[in-house]
């Protein structure tokens, strides 16, 4: 009997889908088996990708083929990778700390530079530039409407930032409170945050509904296509 690969992969996908869907009823063996299978395959694939995509072509192969000078340059990441791998052993874990420290430092620097040049400054400038300072830039609805909209944007941005301000002082009665004007702005900011989170919730729900539609559609198409 010639079993096509599509049938095999389709059947596997169907079983996985049904198994994980069964969690809607309750935790069961089929769900756990499907979940563990998924985790195992994902981890195994990730390990092979890390080997073939980075460690072998960018580290080991150049080290084996390169000259002495290039080997000396590659010895550092090779040694660092070996130290990182020691993190998997409880006894040798401390040896890998310098390598993780290096990673942490480099990542921190990258994040800092990106946050400053990529978000903090451009977004702040955008909040300022949004104001229709010249005639004709307000677009539809007139200048007042544009000003109101942009003003509301600015108020929302600042009050949202104030909501996340956690600097507080100890009052006479021993309790810690934020300053009054911060509290007032935080209350306004909570309105904007609640609205934003509601929009995000709707987005996640819509994405989930799409996935539901896709999975049910696949199941129906597999079952209806099975006879053929």
């Amino acid at each position: 009997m010639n079993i096509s690969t599509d049938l095999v992969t389709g059947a596997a996908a169907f079983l996985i889908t049904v198994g994980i869907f069964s969690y809607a009823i309750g935790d069961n063996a089929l769900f756990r088996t499907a979940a563990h299978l998924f985790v195992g395959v994902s981890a195994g694939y990730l390990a092979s990708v890390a080997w073939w995509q980075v460690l072998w072509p960018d580290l080991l192969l150049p080290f084996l083929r390169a000259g002495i000078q290039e080997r000396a340059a590659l010895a550092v990441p090779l040694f660092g990778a070996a130290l990182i791998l020691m993190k998997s052993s409880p006894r040798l874990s401390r040896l890998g700390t310098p390598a993780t420290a290096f990673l942490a430092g480099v990542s921190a620097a990258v994040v800092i530079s990106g946050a400053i040049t990529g978000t903090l400054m451009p977004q702040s400038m955008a909040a300022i530039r949004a104001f229709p300072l010249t005639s004709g830039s307000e677009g539809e609805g007139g200048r007042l409407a544009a000003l109101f909209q942009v003003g509301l944007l600015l108020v929302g941005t600042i009050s949202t930032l104030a909501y996340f301000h956690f600097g507080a002082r100890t009052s006479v009665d021993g309790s810690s409170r934020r300053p009054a004007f911060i509290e007032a702005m935080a209350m306004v900011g909570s309105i904007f945050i609640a609205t934003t989170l509601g929009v995000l919730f709707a987005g996640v729900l819509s994405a989930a509904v799409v996935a539901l539609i896709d999975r049910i559609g696949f199941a129906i198409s597999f079952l209806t296509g099975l006879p053929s």
Partner: protein
Amino acid sequence: MAQMACPVCGERNPDHHAYCRVCGSALHEKLPDAPSSVTEPAGPEPVIPQWLKDALAMSDQVSGEAKEMEGPGRQAGPVEQASASDRGRGEENLDWLRRLTQGAEPRAGDSVPPSPAEARGEGQAGEGSEAGRTETSSDQPTVLGKWLQRSRQTLPEDPASRSELGIEDASTVPDWIGDLRAKGVAAGTPESSSAEEWRRSEAGQAQGEANLGAPGPLGQDEELPEWLVRAMRGSEGTAPPPQSAQPGPASMEGLTAGKAGEVQESTRGFERDEAPQPARPLPTTTSTIEQGRVRREVRPPPPQTASEPAEDDSLPNIATGGLHSPEDAEHLFIDLPDWLSGSATASASSLDESSTTEPLEARPASLPSWLEGMRPDDAAELRTDLDLPTGGASGFSARETDPDRSSEDRLIDLEFLASLASGIEDRDNFPRPPQREAPAPPQRSPESPPATPVDAKVQRTEVPLLDQLLGESQTAAPLLRPRHPAAVRPLRWLIASALVVVTAGMLLNASQSPIVPAPASEPATQALDLLRSIADLSPLLIMAEYAPARAAELEMSATPLLQDLLARRHPRLALVSTSATGPLLAERLLEGAPAARGYQEGIDRVNLGYLPGGTLGISAFARGPLEAKPVDLTLQSSADAQPLENVTALSDFAALLLVTDSADLARAWIEQSTGLRGTAVLVVIASAQAAPLIQPYFQSGQIDGLVSGMQDGASLETRSSGTGSAKAYWNIYTLGMLLSAAVLMGAALWNVLRALQGRASGGAPGA
């Protein structure tokens, strides 16, 4: 290291030690015979030497002060006892001295000058505290040698008492003598060597001589022990380090005058479990204190009994020790028994009247110089370095030099010394060198003080806060429980069935009329227009930054745009992803666009594969795509890939198409490519869950287009007249949205009504 047991207390000691580090008893049966090379003392002096008079006067003064501070019910400590006995016997002692100087035999009934052991038992045998000692020869014992012998014979026979006094037996040299010698009061001076000789002669005489001749006259300077010489000279400062080769107590090795740099020597002298202690009054009760991880036990010295010979009140009072400087006291406290190490150079004024035990306070003035630098201000730094708990004093710097010591040993020493340096508030404590063999965790008794000394101010301010925090942490926050927990599962079943039934029904009912999606949003329209404007066959980078979970939605959203672009412009494609499954998902994405089916791997498109490191990898790729990804998914060189011809930087791409379900990844790509994209168009195709957080970047102009979820996908598909699954699923999608909204609205109305009803009826709203 070989060890031996102490014959008195049984403690294990290193083999090379001569004295037990716990009880101070000699570990070996005999000390090596000391050559006697003492000279005949000079003729008797007709008068009492001035130093002796000074010592007696000091003794009287201190005794008087101690008595004044004695409160009701306070037990007299050995210091006071010694002082009292000193005063009482002062006159008597002068008689024997006069007789000594006149060459007469001591009469029966005359008070015999106290032995060095007795002096130690009373507290501290300070410099100048013994009178009439002189070196003697084995052939012609001097006066002092003879009375020393006599005093030894009158020592208590009880081994416990003898061990308490630090004396193993009559054949051993008293510790305090050896201490004084090894401390090198006058090392390098003729007096030093003569003192050693005297000591040796004493040891030799102690072994066999039974009779003592008449005490001879006091010796000349060169025949007197160092401590005596110093007392005569007054406060002449510190003595040079000892140069004795005499194998005395091991604890005496390397002891020097107190300097900070010589701490190591001093501590080594204690065999790593003792430390020089400042002068402190002796306790009168046994107390067990907790200090750090070491339990220290203090035993008071035995009270004077009738069997003990009367002390020689020619000896200076122990409270003062006949000391003239803190350095003097420092030398005397080394390697003394515990109960002896508390004698104070200036402790009388620190006695607590209300305390029933001897107060313990290391006054700043009495700190040895090597401890002087370690004030509580250094504690925080030290404890930070050592990760020790804060709020206490510190001991030595963590830069203690002995590399052989384990960190635990150092910690024990440091904590012990911390107690000395800080000034312990609780006056019931009396530190004792830690017992190294049992570094047990602190075990507190109800009355015991804190394991580590804490600054009083810190205690007052921070302890209440700590109590409050502990109290808050112990009060469990009430868990919010759903009102009807049993109804949660049926609710989920109901919702699941509704969704599945509606979806399946719509899927199976293909005859429904399609719903036209709403017009695409402005960002999506702008994205489509910009991508249509790129040049033909220009390189296009596609970043597939989404998880397989949202593959369906993003494929529906991206396919119309991609299809339109590939069909119109036939760009060269490069695929990359920071997730392991991203390259495969990118391939899936292309498979959904019919226009991409003509693309050949290596010619029209190249899959650069996995980009590790997250933001770090994105930054590296933005600064050098080919350097960051030297090989593609098939392990071929990226630089040689035809689709990447003339592409060396990010700005060489005509357009960047970011397909993502994560606002964080979108932010990372936008941030790291800022200033590096040049004129390349950046369009983001985002899942509906990430689009709201990416929208500010479009509004600020950092991205050129934004396609948000299935709605924009379907709208673009309608506008571009392309093929895709978005329109096919659009009906079901809109119905699903309607159903979801209806469920939420119904639940919200229901709960609001219930809350209003509850308020109207006076119940708790919304509970």
